[in-house]
């Protein structure tokens, strides 16, 4: 059902599509709702591998980058079994097709070395869980399709 009153359409923007990655079913449900409150389209993935497969940059032969796929932001948990959020971040930044997509890392633990290495690897933000609505509202500036400095909007950053 198309929403004509989305908070993005008044700016002439299409609703952003966010990929949310978290191994916790509770947290996936939460982040999905928080993002939908910001009028985002949401796809969730339960681990890094599934996220990479969705993005078409999985290691398996036969996963080809999906030219039709439009993802405006990826938000991922840090602590996940198998591939951590940091490892997922690295794989995304290594991909020629996906490296421009802003990646946000979430964690329940406030570990400065962890935060720094994620930011150094190119994460836009590092956020502490549990997230609240105002945290997600702050991420809107990262979700815009085209980073156009002449838009008159600017992101205050971290």
């Amino acid at each position, binding site marked *: 059902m198309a929403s004509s009153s989305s908070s993005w359409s008044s700016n002439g923007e299409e609703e952003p599509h966010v990929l949310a990655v978290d*191994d*916790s*079913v*509770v*947290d996936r*449900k*939460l982040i999905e*709702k*928080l993002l*939908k*409150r910001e009028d985002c389209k949401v796809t969730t993935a339960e681990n890094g591998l599934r996220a990479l497969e969705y993005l078409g940059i999985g290691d398996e032969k036969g996963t080809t980058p999906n030219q039709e796929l439009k993802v405006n932001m990826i938000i991922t948990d840090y*602590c996940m*079994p198998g591939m951590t959020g940091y490892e997922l971040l690295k794989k995304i930044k290594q991909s020629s097709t996906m490296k421009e997509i802003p990646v946000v890392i979430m964690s*329940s633990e406030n570990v400065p070395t962890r935060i720094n290495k994620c930011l150094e690897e190119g994460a836009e933000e590092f956020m502490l*869980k*549990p997230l*609240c*609505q105002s945290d997600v509202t702050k991420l809107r500036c990262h979700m815009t399709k085209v980073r156009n400095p002449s838009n008159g909007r600017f992101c205050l950053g971290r």
Partner: protein
Amino acid sequence: MDVNQLQRGWYKYLTTLFKEGILDDQYKQLQQLQDESTPNFVLEVVSLFFDDSQKIIYELERALSQPLVDYKVIDAYVHQLKGSSSSVGAYKVKEVCVKFRESCENQNKEGCTIAMQNLKHEFSRVKHNLQYLFELEQQILSAGGSIPTIML
């Protein structure tokens, strides 16, 4: 009982849960996320939490009963439970998880056993409390009323 009485009873009960530290402000976040498009949001998230926690508790008991206890495995499960309890505002459950992780770090079998008992107790408590709260909400709805919105 009329709707107002039911709503007051609900509010009083919920306030007690916050006062006793069973729930923390994160629960209010869940309530704020409930709206016309997702009218059962809190119940759905909490139900996921109950199911998920039950599975983890089962695995923890299994892991603790092994002849050779693997503290890394136990810590990983407790970490999961700490995360989900924090996400729904189940404060006391989260607190027990913090202590539990300390015992894991110290490979303290007795500490882990005690933490396990506390965990089951606090989980059971929050589960019964929230189930009662949901029953009160059902009574309000059945009487034609609406659940008051908690202002943060």
